[in-house]
Structure formats: C-alpha cells, structure tokens
C-alpha cells in the first residue's frame, strides 16, 4: 500500500481543522478506500480517520425528520427499530450490504461519499428525498442528496468539506416503502441492479404519491420521475406496476460491465420496479390511514 499520513480527530472541530489541509481525505469505515489505496486508485497525502468522533454516530427521531449521523454503520442501521419503523427500505438495503464484516465497518456517510452507482443505501434515501448536511471550517450547508452525487465516484463535496449527517422526512398516512436488489448471490454481492420505492395511498386506495429510484443502471442512482407521475391516481394492481416497470426502463441508461450486461440490467430493472412497488403498496394497504 502507498504511503500517507494519518490523523485521528477526536471531535468535529478537530476534523474541520484536519480536513482543511491540502491532500486530506476522510477514512470512515475503510471498506472502499482501503482497496482503492491498495490498487493505487486513490492517493491522499493524509487520511483523516473519523471513527473516533462519537457525535457523528447516531440515529435520531427529531419529530419532523429522522437524522442519521454520517459515521453510523450499516449494521447499526440494519438493527435500528427506528429505521425499520420509518424507512423499511433503508433497513433492508443496509442489511443487504456486503457481509457482517463489511456492515460493521462501512458507514452511511461513506456509502454516499464513495458515490458508487450501485450503492445500496442511496435508492431508499432518494425515494425519501433525503438531504445531506455538509460542514467545513467556515460553516455548513444542506443539499438534497440527489444533487450531491454527480457521477460515478464523484460528489459535489468541495475540498475540506465532509458529510455530517443525512436526514429525511417520514411518510404519513397509508404509506409503504421497500427495497430490492439483484446480485450474483444473496450475500457479499455488489448490486447488478437495485430499486427502492415508496407508495402513499389515499382514502379510496388510489396512489396519491409514489417515488421510485434505481441503482446500477446509470452513472448515478436515478429517480424515475415519469414512472412516479404515471402512477398518480391509479388503483394499484399488478398490471399498473408492470406498466410502471416498463416505463422505468425508458428512464435508465444501463451499461455492460464486469457484473452484468446492458440487456439484463434493463430487463431486471423493469421487473424489480414492479415488485418493489407492489411490496410497498401492500404495506400501505395494511396501514390504517
């Protein structure tokens, strides 16, 4: 592994100082950056280890929003009752990341900053229209998650900035949310394609709001807005969702790579959109308004 210096801030104030140095990069759970360092794909001068900062590791219900600290691990999210109650899609996604060993190290902030098109936690956060609190030495800003991830491995984070926390508004009324992933096998697999959806039903049982996001079928995780609006007012049944799956295929741009082909991804995307919507609608139906 190449050489670098290592700093371990004890709190956010020290982190801001450390990160303002040129060539500094965050080491969160290390599950992506350590392999990158080994392959020479990343060459930071300084690694700033954020694992010692307790105040970045929390899951809180703040009334109108659920807030998750950037250093919260996938395992903690997968085991959180709060997440399970308020964003079941995110719980399922966190549980499907890698292995126990990976989940005990990998963090939510790391998953976002790594900006993989196949990141499992991104679709469930996008369908909840999550926002990200970003800080640096001179202040902070809050941006929609959708505008933070701008390309494969690329974010709009500026030098010296770091992700403090991620937040989303829980759904109300008759709602459901779900996540489905297709990989080579059930464990340890990087998604060939993944999808999350939320469905909110009105009193008559028609769709009043739907959100759909697909991963690994474009340079970034994609919100399928045409699909979402086509569902509004529809009485949900299998046919409607299958049609939504077909619509979603029009909104993605998959490629062929080592994990799968363009054709397979396109086909599977439509299938899992239909399934993920059906599961979310089923959940919504079971919920009292």
């Amino acid at each position: 592994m190449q050489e670098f210096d290592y700093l371990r801030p004890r709190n956010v104030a020290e982190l801001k100082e450390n990160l303002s140095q040129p060539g500094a990069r965050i080491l969160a759970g290390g599950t992506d950056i350590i392999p990158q360092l080994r392959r020479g794909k990343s060459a930071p001068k300084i690694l700033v280890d954020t694992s010692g900062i307790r105040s970045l590791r929390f899951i809180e219900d703040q009334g109108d929003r659920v807030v998750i600290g950037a250093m919260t691990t996938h395992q903690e999210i997968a085991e959180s009752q709060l997440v399970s109650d308020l964003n079941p899609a995110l719980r399922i996604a966190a549980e499907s990341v890698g292995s126990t060993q990976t989940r005990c190290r990998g963090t939510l902030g790391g998953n976002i900053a790594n900006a993989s098109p196949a990141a499992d936690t991104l679709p469930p956060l996008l369908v909840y229209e999550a926002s990200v609190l970003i800080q640096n030495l001179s202040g902070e800003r809050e941006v929609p998650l959708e505008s933070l991830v701008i390309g494969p491995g690329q974010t709009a984070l500026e030098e010296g900035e770091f992700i403090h926390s991620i937040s989303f508004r829980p759904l109300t009324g008759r709602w459901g949310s779900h996540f489905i992933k297709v990989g080579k096998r059930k464990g340890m697999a990087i998604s060939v394609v993944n999808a999350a959806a939320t469905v909110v039903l009105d009193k008559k049982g028609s769709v009043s709001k739907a959100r759909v996001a697909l991963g690994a079928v474009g340079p970034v995780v994609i919100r399928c807005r045409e699909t979402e609006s086509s569902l509004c007012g529809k009485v949900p049944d299998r046919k409607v969702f299958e049609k939504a799956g077909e619509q979603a295929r029009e909104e993605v741009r998959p490629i062929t790579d080592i994990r799968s082909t363009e054709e397979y991804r396109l086909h599977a995307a439509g299938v899992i959109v239909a399934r993920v919507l059906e599961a979310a609608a089923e959940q919504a139906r079971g919920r009292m308004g």
Partner: protein
Amino acid sequence: MAHHMISLLVNGQKEKLLVPSNLTLLHVLRDMLGLTGTKNGCEAGECGACTVLLDGEPVNSCMVLAPELDGREVITVEGLAKDGQLTPLQEAFAELSAVQCGYCTPGMLMSATALLRRKPHPTQQDVQEALVGNLCRCTGYQRIIDAVMVASRTGGAE
C-alpha cells in the same frame, strides 16, 4: 513515512507498538505479534479468512489500518480457548469435521463466535447469513453450519 505509537489489547494482553500508517491489522497480528492463526486470503475484504473481533465486532483485519487500533481491543482465534480448553464452538468444529484444509477455519470461528455472542440460539438461516462473508473452497459449508448449530445447543461461543 509517519509512524504511530499505539496501545491495544490483543487477546487480553496489552501491546504497545510503533506502526507505519499503511500497515493493516492483519500484518500487525501476523508479522509483528506472530499470531499467524489469522489467515491472509484475498487482502480485499472479500474472503473473510482474516476475520477477527474488533471491540467485539467481526471485521476483516485486512481492511483495518494499524493506527486505527489505538485504544481498541482485538480478539483473534488464538484468544478463543482459555487455558487449553476449547470453546464449545471449537469443540463442535472438531467433532463434526467442519474443517478440511483449515484455511478458512479461523475466520469462520470468529464470525460464528460473534454471532453466538449476539444471538445464542440462532436459526440455520441466521448462521448462513452470519457466514456470508467467509468463503470456504472445500468443505461445502454444510458441516460448518451444522457445527455452529450444535455449539448453540452445547454452550455457544464461550
């Protein structure tokens, strides 16, 4: 190259070491402390052969940097048996021949130990899920899963 002085507990024993930034826990264990029970498989976080417990959680030691270890506690396969007495889990592995070449065994034992500590009476599916990050290329997994199930009835991880 920056070096860091770290203090950590390894299998209950205090260690004070001077480590370079880019050394991993795997090499601290194998090369600096001579604890070669922890195996080097893929060095990419894929195979689980190097699994140890870090502050009680199973992690791939090839994915942890040495300076991160300051103030932490590590348990390796050498730290499972106490005074020559194997844990019920280790006994079950031996009893059921859940070992063929043995290379994946230390990692399997550490992942299964973490599971049994968290969930003393797991279902077979829990066991399969807990071992998803540990590859074995020869036993076919069934005996390993059986051994963990047996251990959950005979005393678990301790």
